[in-house]
């Protein structure tokens, strides 16, 4: 069964990929989507069985992989509660995204390739979550990286898309460096890479120390930090996050599946999977908490200033991942996984909703050209509204009702408070502040897009559409399909500018795109309510697949009401400010940006990370490469090596002329001297 779930998408990807354009596009679409729906249908019963609690883990061997000395690992598929959760998340969102893409990608000439990549991604992700050893996890880890690279660069004609693809891969590789070193170290310490064996042996190692780069350090801390660096790369945490916003170059369904719901959560999954190991490493957990909290606030501040609808959601994803990490850092792995679970639904919903808006607005992604779309695309509007209510965490504690994010995010904020350490409090405050910003940027997005007056007329995409004719799509040139990342320098209108409709009529998306929105809306509304008892409060549900900290959960439930309502209060405040700025008085944002000039620019330019890295790493790398090549290889090694020898030989041969005197006695003398020298050397 689990083999079918995992390998069916691979099979579909191979069939669709090799058939490519030799079959009609619908063939590839049907094969891949069909495979995913089968996988999804098979995954839910597994998850529901685990929901009851007490079901043991199973490991199904597939194939021998590597035996080398005492290092051994195999291909195998592990299923336990943690995997079951990931299985439904991955297969459900993937199946819906496949369905959504039927019409979203309908006019693209390369559809078989797109669907093959999507299925390939799903396979790699499933290999990741079913891994029983660290190396197979790394296989899935790199496999999703490959699929992400291919899908970000799907419109490879666009220079920005292929640049973003490389950036995603290379930045992830920086994280992978940590992951690989972590695996090596783990093998060295435990003599195995099997996850269950490592987790069982970890507590006994908690006091041991080890040499690392010439220092003596705590064994478990250094191992967990190395592994966490891998998680930081994949989950776009502060420092290694720069690839994620650029990844929006990929088609929107890709953003929904890979860069919101599944792949980017792999880091959180890894920390939870290895939670008993991390629990032996207090310093590493402190780092996880700190990085999580810092990312959470960093990404939220940037998200408040972006104009591109997909980038706002991308930073929002980054920020939500921060929540998950600090939840794990303070020991609430169940809460982290719960937020991962709910976030997958509402963030995929928001992305697919954004895709529907982009579809309706003829590939315009700049929110400054949106406005008043509520009536034009009502279904999309309600979907995104559900997503927004979920992400901002709308709910009432005393009534015990709320949208998905209310259950998971509030639990994280409470548990950080309940943990009580300094870092826990830091995370708590960052979490609360980020919740305020989350509410602000989410409602800002909603107000700019769906409320106010239409500002469509000045958009190039819209003008093009009106000019060429609404029904005449410009898909023949995929390069202008999606155009994220407008330049700052462009003279674009402020959001209060009223340009009018320009004679354009947005159209609601077709049914295959709306069905996924509907299903995900259901998840965004109810997933929290339904699954909170299991994910948060049930040790039996987790059944040892993560480190379940029962006293901490009790402490979480015992936090003061002010803490429990903190997120709700700041949420309302964020909503109010957004309403004030984008509905009530639309001149406010401009004024605010002017008032806060440097701060605004700092946020707007994403804290200048890209610029910093460009001058810190990319420029020196190319510079050094040229230096090594021109002055090292050519200027030094070749010059004094082969070319130098050639020169010496040439000059020497001129000198040798003189010895060729032609007189016998001079030759005899040289021979004699040579003989003496040789005998001397041999004898002594």
């Amino acid at each position, binding site marked *: 069964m689990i083999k079918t779930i995992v390998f069916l998408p691979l099979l579909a990807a191979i069939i669709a990929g090799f058939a490519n354009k030799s079959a009609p596009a619908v063939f590839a679409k049907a094969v891949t989507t069909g495979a995913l729906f089968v996988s999804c249908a098979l995954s839910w019963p597994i998850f529901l069985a685990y929901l009851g609690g007490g079901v043991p883990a199973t490991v199904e061997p597939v194939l021998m992989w590597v035996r080398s000395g005492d290092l051994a690992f195999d291909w195998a598929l592990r299923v336990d509660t943690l995997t079951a959760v990931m299985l439904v998340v991955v297969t459900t969102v993937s199946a819906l995204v496949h369905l959504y893409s039927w019409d979203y990608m309908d006019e693209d000439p390369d559809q078989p390739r797109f669907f093959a990549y999507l299925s390939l991604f799903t396979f790699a992700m499933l290999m990741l979550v079913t891994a029983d050893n660290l190396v197979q996890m790394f296989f899935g880890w790199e496999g999703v990286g490959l699929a992400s690279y291919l899908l970000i660069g799907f419109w490879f004609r666009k220079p920005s898309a292929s640049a973003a693809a490389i950036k995603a891969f290379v930045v992830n590789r920086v994280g992978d460096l940590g992951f690989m070193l972590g695996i090596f170290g783990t093998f060295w310490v435990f003599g195995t890479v099997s996850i269950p064996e490592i987790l069982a042996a970890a*507590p006994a190692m908690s006091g041991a120390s080890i040499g690392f780069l*010439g220092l003596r350090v705590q064994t478990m801390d250094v191992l967990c930090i190395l592994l966490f660096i891998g998680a930081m790369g994949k989950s776009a945490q502060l420092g290694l996050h720069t690839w994620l916003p650029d990844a929006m170059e990929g088609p929107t369904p890709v953003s929904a599946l890979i860069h919101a719901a599944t792949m980017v959560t792999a880091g959180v999954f890894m920390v939870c999977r290895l939670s008993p190991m991390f629990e032996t490493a207090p310093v590493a957990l402190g780092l996880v908490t700190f990085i999580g909290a810092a990312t959470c606030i960093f990404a939220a501040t940037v998200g408040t200033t972006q104009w591109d609808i997909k980038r706002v959601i991308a930073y929002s994803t980054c920020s939500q991942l921060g929540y998950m990490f600090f939840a794990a850092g303070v*020991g609430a792995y169940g809460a982290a996984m719960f937020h991962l679970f709910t976030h997958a639904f509402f963030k995929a919903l928001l992305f697919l909703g954004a895709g529907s808006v982009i579809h309706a607005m003829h590939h315009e992604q700049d929110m400054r050209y949106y406005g008043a779309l509520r009536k034009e695309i009502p279904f999309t509007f309600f979907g995104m509204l559900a997503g927004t209510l979920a992400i901002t965490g709308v709910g009432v504690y005393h009534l015990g009702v709320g949208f998905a994010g209310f259950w998971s995010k509030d639990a994280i904020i409470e548990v950080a408070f309940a943990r009580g350490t300094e870092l826990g409090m830091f995370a708590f405050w960052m979490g609360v502040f980020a919740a305020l910003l989350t509410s602000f940027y989410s409602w800002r997005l909603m107000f700019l897009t769906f409320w106010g007056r239409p500002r469509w007329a000045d958009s190039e995409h819209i003008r093009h559409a009106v000019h060429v004719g609404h029904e005449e799509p410009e898909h023949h040139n995929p390069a202008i399909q999606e155009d994220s990342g407008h330049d700052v320098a462009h003279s674009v209108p402020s959001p209060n500018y009223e340009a009018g409709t320009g004679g354009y009529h947005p159209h609601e998306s077709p049914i295959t795109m709306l069905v996924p929105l509907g299903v995900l809306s259901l998840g965004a509304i109810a997933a929290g309510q339904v699954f909170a008892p299991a994910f948060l409060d049930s040790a039996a549900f987790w059944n040892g697949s993560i480190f379940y900290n029962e006293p901490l959960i009790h402490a979480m439930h015992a936090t003061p009401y002010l803490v429990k309502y903190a997120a709700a209060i700041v949420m309302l405040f964020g909503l109010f400010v957004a309403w004030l700025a984008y509905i009530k008085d639309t001149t406010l944002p401009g004024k605010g940006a002017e008032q806060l000039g440097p701060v605004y620019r700092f946020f707007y330019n994403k804290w200048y990370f890209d610029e910093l890295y460009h001058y810190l790493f990319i420029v020196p*790398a190319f510079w050094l*490469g040229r230096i090594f090549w021109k002055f*090292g290889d050519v200027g030094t090694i070749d010059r004094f090596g082969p070319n130098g020898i050639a020169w010496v030989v040439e000059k020497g041969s001129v000198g040798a002329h003189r010895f060729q005197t032609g007189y016998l006695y001079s030759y005899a003398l040289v021979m004699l001297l040579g003989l003496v020298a040789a005998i001397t050397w041999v004898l002594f």
Partner: protein
Amino acid sequence: MELPILSIMLAVPLVAAIACLFLPGSTARMVALAATLIDLALGIMLWLNFDIGGAQWQFTERAALFAGFQYALGIDGIALLLIMLSVFLMPICILASWDSITRRVGEYMAAFLLMEVLMIGVFAAQDLFLFYIFFEAGLIPMYLIIGVWGGDNRIYASYKFFLYTLLGSVLMLIAMLWMANAAGTTDIPTLMQYDFPAGAQIWLWLAFFASFAVKMPMWPVHTWLPDAHVQAPTAGSVILAGVLLKLGGYGFIRFSLPMFPDASAELAWLVFALSMIAVIYTSLVALVQADMKKLIAYSSVAHMAIVTVGLFAFNAQGLEGAMMVMLGHGLVSGALFLCVGVIYDRLHTREIARYGGLSINMPRYALLFLLFTMASIGLPGTSNFVGEFLALAGIYEVSTFVTLVCTTGIILGAAYMLFLYRRVAFGEQRNADAARMPDLNLREWAMLGPLAAAVLWMGIYPESFLAPMRGDIAMLEARLAPVAPQYDSALTAGTPREHAANYVAAEEHGPEGAH
């Protein structure tokens, strides 16, 4: 009576080579292809009949010639795999030269077949001087292949190639003479067990090192490689990268490590230092290349550095990893040079900037190129991952610092390979002539298809390749065990902590489990 299969494998291409000299071009091609395919079939027979876990040396043949010099052949698992690599790549090389070589076809094919004889010979030789002859004679056909059928600057490249490699081998010959004298035998298996005095080992080791480091090539004696690759015809590059670069690694495994274990331990720091420099240095140089072949050539130097590091880790993972990197790199870099050759044949330039957007008009080519690019980067599931992972895991036990520096190769490797792939396959079609190039033809599929299959096979089920060498590696590891280095990452046990890091005391006011 057993079939002298190794001698037959040597004889078939030798006879064919002589025949090719006198045959017209089109027939010579057929003869060469047939001979290499026969050798491949013999190689498969060899592999199938190889008794894993049996005697260390199998298929041995011995005939005393003169003055103690003997014709002795025999293989262990390590040699078997390298012979397999050679016979697997040869028919592909002949196919790669099918249309692109039009001048002196007979001589060209003869040179390649002679090359094959020498390559099989070098891995099968069990006599010190027989090995030396095969090892050095390999220079001659390669020298001719570059010098006669090479590019515009072929004379400079072939001289550089010759000069570098010859210099090292003179020292090796002197060392061999000394060894034969001291040990009283030229039999390699005996020498592998012979304990030379520690003082002499250093000098012997250095003499061999001079030769192997050039062949490898290690920094800073690598500069012949980019020139040789750039000027060599496609098939020449494939053999150069695929097999000739492996001679250095094979030399370390067969000679330096087992014969001079003390010196190897003593001088491991030198190997580590040069390898670390190579990984960073050549990767950065690869990043700024505008010539495809040069880029791949520099990447080879970086990959070979992982091999040397793995070998001098002195443990099973390191040694097996190094072998796997050699095999994987043989396939992958060969395939990458073929990929360059495919488009070079169409446009006659190696300049990266002249291409672009090939995914549009050559989608199948782009797919295979992508596979080999990813394999070169070491993506799990491909051949190179297994090797790199094992080699680096092996060295971690010896030095975390060396591991850290060498593992940065995975970042830099991704950067230069993907940058190359982007400029070739992605983007708009900038040049009309590049945009008109047709996709792979049947002959090119026949070249690249088997390589792709082998790359995936090695990545997914490497046991086929690890099993034959396991016993030999274990023997080598045992031989090296007395001199194995002190681990800088040594573990010190401590008292485990009582509680988990996020321990929270259970609340006092009664049990709450019932909630």
